[in-house]
C-alpha cells in the first residue's frame, strides 16, 4: 500500500498554488524549470496549496521569502508525463506545523539523482503548464 493511501485525493478541477521562494526561479516574469526540480529538503514531494482553501495573499504570507506564486491545475499535473510512463498525482497533505490549512503535495515526481533526465523533463512540463498568480 502506498504511504500516501490515507491522504485526501483532490479533484482534477482544483487549482494549486506553488510558492516560488528563490528569486532566480522567477526571472523576467517567467518561472524557471528549476522551481519544479526536487531538492533534498522536499522529501520526494513538491509542496503546493489548494486555492479553494486559501487566498493568494495567505499563500505568500506563509513564507519569509516568497518572490511569487504560480498556479497549476490538478488534472494537468496528473496528465503530466503519462506518455513517459509517469504517474504524477496530487494529494491533500496537511502539515502539522503549518499555520494554515490547504497544503497539498505533488507526488511521484522523478528524483533528480536517480532519474535525472526525467526529472528535468517533468520540471519543464510543470513549468510550461504553470501560470503566474496575480492578486
Amino acid at each position, binding site marked *: 500500500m502506498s504511504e500516501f493511501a490515507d491522504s485526501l485525493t483532490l479533484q482534477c478541477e482544483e487549482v494549486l498554488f506553488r510558492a516560488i521562494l528563490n528569486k532566480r526561479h522567477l526571472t523576467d516574469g517567467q518561472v524557471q524549470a*528549476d522551481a519544479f526540480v526536487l531538492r533534498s529538503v522536499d522529501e520526494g514531494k513538491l509542496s503546493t496549496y489548494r486555492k479553494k482553501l486559501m487566498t493568494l495573499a495567505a499563500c505568500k504570507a506563509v513564507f519569509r*521569502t516568497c518572490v511569487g506564486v504560480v498556479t497549476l491545475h490538478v488534472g494537468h499535473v496528473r496528465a503530466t508525463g503519462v506518455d513517459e510512463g509517469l504517474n504524477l498525482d496530487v494529494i491533500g497533505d496537511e502539515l502539522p506545523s503549518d499555520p494554515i490549512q490547504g497544503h497539498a503535495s505533488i507526488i511521484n515526481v522523478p528524483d533528480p539523482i536517480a532519474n535525472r533526465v526525467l526529472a*528535468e523533463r517533468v520540471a519543464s512540463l510543470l513549468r510550461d503548464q504553470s501560470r503566474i498568480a496575480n492578486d
Partner: protein
Amino acid sequence: MVSAGIQEFPSIHEYVSNLVGTPPTFQGAAGRTDCTGELSVESECPEWLTLYYRDKAYAAFVDDLFSLYHEEDETPPCEGVIDWVLESTVLAKSLLAQNWTGPRVTSDDEGGIRLSWREGDRELRAIVPADLSQRYLYWQHGTKYGGIPNFGSATLYLGLSGMNERVR
C-alpha cells in the same frame, strides 16, 4: 598589469579588489600560487579571466555566477564547482563568439550550480552538482529530450551550437 597582445587587462589582484563581494575561495578559481605563496599571475592567468575582460556578455555571466555567494537564501557553490564551470564555459564562449548568450544561473541548494539556456522550444541545462562526477547535460527540443552524463567543455559547446543553428 598583465600584457596580452594588443590589450592590457588588470591582474588577478586587481580583479579581486574590483569584484564586489569576492568570495573567500576565489583564489582557487583565479589561479595557482607559486612557491612563495603568491598568485603567479603572469604564468597562470586563467582563460576565463581573459575572457572576462574582453567580453561583456561573459563578464556578466561570471558576475552572476559569483553573486551566488552573496545572495541571501542561496547556498554558496563549492569551490570545485565554480572552477569547473568557469573552465568549461571558455571553449563554448570562444568558439561561439557573439552567438554565445549567458545562461540563467541557479544553485541546487547543495553546493552545485545549474546553468540554463533557452531559445524557443530548445533548451539546454548544465547541471553541475558538488560531486562533479554526477554532472550532466540535459537537452530538450520540443517533445524530444535527453541527457549526457559527465559532459565536458566540447559537449557543452556542441549543445549550445545546436541551439544557435535553429536561431540563424
